[in-house]
């Protein structure tokens, strides 16, 4: 199965998003490189708003990930509550 991935700038705002991804996607691999955090996952990767809000204690607009989003691969399925990357079409 091919990997999907998503990468964020390594900063304070992206941290809860990355932590939420790690919590929701046990198979995800995190790669730190200078200024960048890339997360690879086999086949599928989900970002959940609930999990991020649980970590920060505040409401989170999932569109705010775009402020720190660097790149991604995979087909996107998104709504207000989650963003999923996969190769399903």
């Amino acid at each position, binding site marked *: 199965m091919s990997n999907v991935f998503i990468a964020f700038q390594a900063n*304070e705002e992206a*941290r*809860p998003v990355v932590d939420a991804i790690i919590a929701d996607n046990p198979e995800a691999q995190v790669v*730190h*490189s*200078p200024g960048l955090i890339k997360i690879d996952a086999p086949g599928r990767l989900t970002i959940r708003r609930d999990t991020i809000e649980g970590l*920060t*204690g*505040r409401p989170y607009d999932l569109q705010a990930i775009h402020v720190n989003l660097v790149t991604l691969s995979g087909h996107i399925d998104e709504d207000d509550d989650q963003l999923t990357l996969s190769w399903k079409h």
Partner: protein
Amino acid sequence: MNIDLQAREITPLRNTFAHVATYIGGDKTASRYQEATLGAQPRVNFHYRPTWDPAHELFDASRSAIRLADWYALRDPRQFYYATWTMTRARQQDAMESNFAFVDSKRMGVLMSDALREQVLQVLLPLRHAAWGANMNNTAICAYGYGTAFTAPAMFHAMDNLGVAQYLTRLGLVIGAPEALETAKQAWLDAPEWQPLRRLVEDSFVVQDPFELFVAQNLALDGQLYPLIYGSFVDDHVALQGGTAVAMLTAFMPEWHDESARWIDAVIKVAAAESEDNRRLLSQWARAWGERAYAALAPVARVALGEHAQAALDEARQAMEARAAKAGLDLDNV
């Protein structure tokens, strides 16, 4: 000549400060909230006791009867430190500004009936003085309380209360004349229906124990005032009679009350869970101040809601008591 540019990863030797690491259990990456809060309370080397209170150190946990082994246990679930708090409020301020602009541009303030406008001014405007009292009290909690985790959000809360007072002032200026503010101040000072609440607010100014003040102001009084005024009065009563403008201009208050209630409940829950003594004290305070607030709000509720006042008051009281019970207090057996 070739210049070979390479990216080099420099990993930090430590992930956070040593004093933060001791709280979060090892050298893990700490959030800004943790770094801005944990270990920030001045503890030692005060040298002199304050001349205005020689019985205590400058920062002294014994100003409160509540005993906690670790005052940093009173974490804010919203994880507010200065940056997150200001960014959150700035967003809400933007929304409120556009509400004010909308109401202004559609002349919605003028579209209300005179009787309704008069009643709104009569009920809401004197509350700016109550909100100012809440500002004073939360500032006092910050000044005399102990532990940055507890006192820093109290200061944010104080400034939020000032914001509430300012929104009420602006509301008065939008739907009424500038004289409305003076009229409301006179009502706060002289009108019989406001005197019990004013007495309660002024009595709370001299409460010495910062934790008692926290329970009195934030749970007992505001825990009933906000559901009563911004729930029953503005949303259920005024809005249905063509006063949608008022609901728009006070949109911040119920939203903020729900948000800050999470902090207040979390603080009380942790303090009550620490010991039976704490739980008993907090329950006594919540009950005594809750009853006073209930009585003080009764004449205001009658002005606001007429025959529906009693039901709305009881509903507000139940909402407050439900929060207290959920936080582990026992209001019935104290």
